[in-house]
């Protein structure tokens, strides 16, 4: 018989792995992606494929020639970053911009800090915000949703709901359209229902906990509700705010990114409330019609602080009032 193996307890492992979790998130994104493909057709397909392929390629190259560690490209996190980046872009954006966005997301947002697990900011959002600041025009003209459209760069454009609210023009889509996703917007953010299906999948598979998405959505609902009650002329109803823009996608998929979110339930609630407040402040009072990306990045910066000062509830701890 071979030598017996000695190791400290526990002697069994749950079988969870990084690639399993990443694949789980990718599966949860499939409904949102399908809705994007349905409404934006060819453009959505091109942007998604480019983003995923270039993210994976950049991670592979950087890992191989610069970091020189064991290659982590197979764990699926690069593909996930690419997918999230694509879902945050308008579907009529030129391919070369997508490639630049991927390079920034992977190169600056993730690998420059040492790879998965060490990045302080959500890489996909770094890519998106970089593009938004560098190419504001391309990043803020969204195509009109046309089922199975074959148009790409030449697609007819439409404003987003939030832009309509901000600049007081146009007719806000019906709540049902908002819910299904029949409106202008980024590739993956339009359909609230598809994202909610993804959320349910993530919760059932125990990939994330409810704390972050629920606290963000609840904060935005309450805050915009107060504003709406104070001045319905100027501020849209909380339902419109919940279902429009990148809020759903941000709350469910971007803010819950493992690496950049706090690590205990109490901290997660603080983080979620912070994102909600900053989002509404930017949407209601800022220059941009949309603020989820910035809100998440700002709270990402607070995550280490939250982790240090907000501790989980210890067993047997008395709640101090």
């Amino acid at each position, binding site marked *: 018989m071979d030598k017996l193996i000695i190791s400290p307890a526990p*002697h069994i492992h749950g079988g969870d792995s990084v690639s399993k979790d990443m694949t789980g998130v990718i599966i949860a994104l499939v409904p949102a992606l399908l809705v994007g493909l349905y409404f934006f057709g060819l453009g959505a397909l091109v942007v998604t494929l480019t983003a995923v392929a270039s993210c994976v390629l950049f991670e592979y190259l950087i890992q191989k020639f610069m970091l020189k560690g064991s290659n982590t490209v197979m764990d699926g996190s690069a593909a996930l970053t690419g997918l999230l980046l694509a879902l945050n872009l308008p579907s009529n954006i030129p391919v070369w911009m997508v490639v630049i966005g991927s390079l920034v997301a992977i190169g600056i947002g993730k690998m420059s800090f040492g790879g998965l697990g060490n990045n302080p900011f959500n890489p996909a959002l770094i890519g998106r915000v970089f593009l938004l600041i560098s190419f504001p025009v391309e990043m803020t003209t969204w195509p009109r949703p046309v089922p199975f459209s074959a148009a790409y760069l030449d697609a007819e454009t439409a404003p987003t709901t939030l832009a309509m609210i901000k600049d007081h023009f146009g007719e806000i889509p019906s709540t049902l359209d908002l819910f299904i996703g029949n409106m202008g917007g980024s590739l993956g953010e339009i359909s609230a229902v598809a994202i909610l299906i993804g959320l349910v999948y993530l919760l059932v598979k125990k990939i994330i906990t409810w704390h972050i998405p629920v606290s963000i959505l609840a904060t935005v609902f309450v805050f915009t509700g107060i504003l709406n009650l104070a001045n319905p002329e100027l501020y849209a109803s909380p339902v419109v705010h919940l279902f429009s823009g990148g809020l759903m996608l941000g709350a469910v998929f971007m803010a819950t990114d493992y690496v950049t979110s*706090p690590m205990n339930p109490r901290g997660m609630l603080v983080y979620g409330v912070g994102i909600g407040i900053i989002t509404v402040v930017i949407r209601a009072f800022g220059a941009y019609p949309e603020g989820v990306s910035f809100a998440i990045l700002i709270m990402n910066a607070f995550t280490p602080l939250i982790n240090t000062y907000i501790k989980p509830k210890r*067993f047997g701890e008395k709640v101090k009032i």
Partner: protein
Amino acid sequence: MKTFRMGGIHPKENKFSAGKQIQVAELPKQVVIPLSHYIGTPSEAVVKKGDVVKVGQLIGKANGLISANVHSSVSGKVNKIDVQLDATGYKRSAVYIDVDGDEWLETIDRSTEIKRECNLSKEEIIRKIQDAGIVGLGGATFPTHVKLSPPPGKKANILIINAVECESYLTCDHQLMLEKGEEILVGTTILMKALEVNRAVIGIENNKKDAIVHLQQLAKNFKGIKVEALKVRYPQGGEKQLIDAIIRRQVPSGRIPIEVGAVVQNVGTTYAVYEAVQKNKPMIERVMTISGKTAPNPGNYLVRLGTYLASVVDQAGGIPEGTGKIVGGGPMMGRSLMNLNVPMAKGSSGVVFIRKEESVRKPVKNCIRCAKCVTVCPMGLEPFLLMSQSERNMWDEMEDNCTMDCIECGSCSYTCPSNRPLLDYIRFGKTTVGGIIRNRATKK
């Protein structure tokens, strides 16, 4: 259905030996009875080389407060008193006895008849338990009589019997409940009397429905005993977790269960108490499970203390092909054994064979900060943080982050998607921080 309120995991149960009748293991040719225990000071040998001993005869006397008597589990001649490698490869003193026949002390009642009446006083019961050398059979082997004598000023108001058996594979307590249900209930009443409480709850996880039904039927004839079905969740067998599950009170950090008025005893211990008090039988044998995915003949065996594990395993069909690791105890908290030439001790609840492909750890990756370890920690700690502090020798910070509360259940390492050895490092930190705290206390 009740369970504890914080963290927890649900590993595959793999209870292959469930429902298998307890088989009496063959008498070995030689036994090696360890004089030291997992916890506390070693006992002092009271026999010498050449002495003839009977089953149940005292061979090691308790030494100090946290220590227990040791009795001969066989009859025969003392071969020598020497060191013996224990499961960890370190040497412990032990008594070697060559078996000759099976002659029991006359005082021990060997009939199977159930003796329900007990007219002894509280002190007499505790005395008898102490004399019989009974220790907690859940694994920590803490002397039972110490647990039954609360510190002055403290009073228990509930007795909790731990029949959870939350570890995968192990079924010895389950089978014991099915076969010796009434004895266990009598044992419970005896313990209630010793503690002067009128309420006892037997906590059983819901994957042992037959045992729950069986004990609930029997408990109708016993006053104050309730059988509670608990949701299957690891580590429910942890003392603090079980108290939380049953009476919804959390024992504060660094305190003992009596603080919230509870005393927890293992169900195997309860049976041993029954035998000691009603039948005068000291702690000389226990039920253990031999199991594993590839085990040829998983089952429950009644084994005399000091029997070499190898001989028990041989009776259960030997070591299966392709075994990479042999675990003494359950796979979550048990120790991996260097070989089977170790005697079984009071705390040995089982032997589990783990296949080679499952026994090698997967390569460690970066922490992706998924916080799953925080979510599953039943004590509300932050294992990822404790591990990195332990790696960097930040002992003060570890103490501030409640390292000493860790119950070493292993849920964090079990669940980590990056296969990080969280518990290894936390245990290292705990040992060091514990030493620092003790040093500080002695300096004061």
